[in-house]
């Protein structure tokens, strides 16, 4: 069974694909809080990616509060995802503030900015990629 669907054709680096797909599956509820994640070595072997790449992804996911690593016992999905949700909320707020600043520079009004957001949302929907972007 495939744990992750990684591809060299994806423009994102491998560790970013791992982060994005685990985040997607945790947020979608495929993987429940407390559920054990595959070990770093197991995931590396089954997806043909180096151990250090998986390790880097797990470390980033842990910092973002999505997974918890118990020393010697491997990693599990975090029991409480509030911290992760909070960080995502903060990151979203920051991006929106940035977007408003750029819109102001370009002289866009509220309606035009709404319109641009709709254009981007349509574009994102037409290309079915999982959650993208850096973790907060």
């Amino acid at each position: 069974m495939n744990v992750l669907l990684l591809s060299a054709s994806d423009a994102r680096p491998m560790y970013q694909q791992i982060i994005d797909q685990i985040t997607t599956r945790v947020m979608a509820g495929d993987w429940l809080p407390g559920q054990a994640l595959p070990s770093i070595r197991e995931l590396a072997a089954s997806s043909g990616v180096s151990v250090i790449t998986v390790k880097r992804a797990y470390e980033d996911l842990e910092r973002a509060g999505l997974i918890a690593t118990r020393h010697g016992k491997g990693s599990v999905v975090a029991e409480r995802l509030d911290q992760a949700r909070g960080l995502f909320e903060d990151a979203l707020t920051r991006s929106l503030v940035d977007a408003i600043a750029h819109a102001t520079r370009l002289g866009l009004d509220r309606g035009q900015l709404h319109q641009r957001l709709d254009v981007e949302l349509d574009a994102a929907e037409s290309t079915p990629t999982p959650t993208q972007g850096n973790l907060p």
Partner: protein
Amino acid sequence: MTAAFAVSGLCKRYPHFALQDVSLTLAEGEVMGLVGVNGAGKTTLLRLLTGLAAPDAGSIDVLGHRLPQAQVAAKRGIGFASEDMRLYRSQSLDWHIALVRQIYPEWDDNYAASLMRRFDLRAQQPIGGYSHGQRVKALLLLCLARRPRLLLLDEPTTGLDPVARAEVLEALADVLRDERRSVLFSSHNTHDVEQLADHIAFLHGGRLLAHRDKESFLDDWRRVLCLGSLPPTLANWPEVAQVRSAGSQIEVKLRAWRDDLPERLAAQGLTVQRVDPMALEDIFVTAVRAGGAA
């Protein structure tokens, strides 16, 4: 913990080539990818590690055994496969298997059978009738099924079609499940190294240009696209490996990325348009052309 191998101050001189002052360690359970152009010294380094050649200077320890004194003990744990190794053309793969399993008691019949299926090889057919890809896979099977603690592979994927390459890479990835086994493989194919290696060792002109863990190595490089007029001193920045311009478009390849670099480029009057990570392939070519400082 014993290192899979450790070499220090290694030198080997040939009439037209010299490997110079190479010091390198691979921790147990890790995969190292050896990159370099033809003639960079990759095969020489592998031959020294297998004990097939003796160094002019420096020390070599493999699986805790000093070469050449403890060569016999070291060789028990080494699995070496290279393109110029020959199989007996008139004999079958089964015949070769019987030969190898007599020598190595660790031989694993189940593993051999599963590799035979994965590689889609016919056991009874004489090797002479195998394609190049099938011969490479047969050689790798003979090497892997011994379960050696250190795999030394010289260009394991060169000349393979994409399907055979994927089969070989999957078999190598499987080796990672055992945390006591280590792999050093050389490759021209930077995609394979980028995918599978924990560490990258970069040889150029017989010298080790860089050896780092792969993630931080890749993280040091960025391709930045800017708009503006080319500042004359930009090419001299120590962080800059290459600058190219086309009209008002400027491409800067950075070998020592830091978060403040976009600001510094902006201070030169440039508008930074994109900052992208670089694939190992691009880093490799850029570093070699920049005169080999990675």
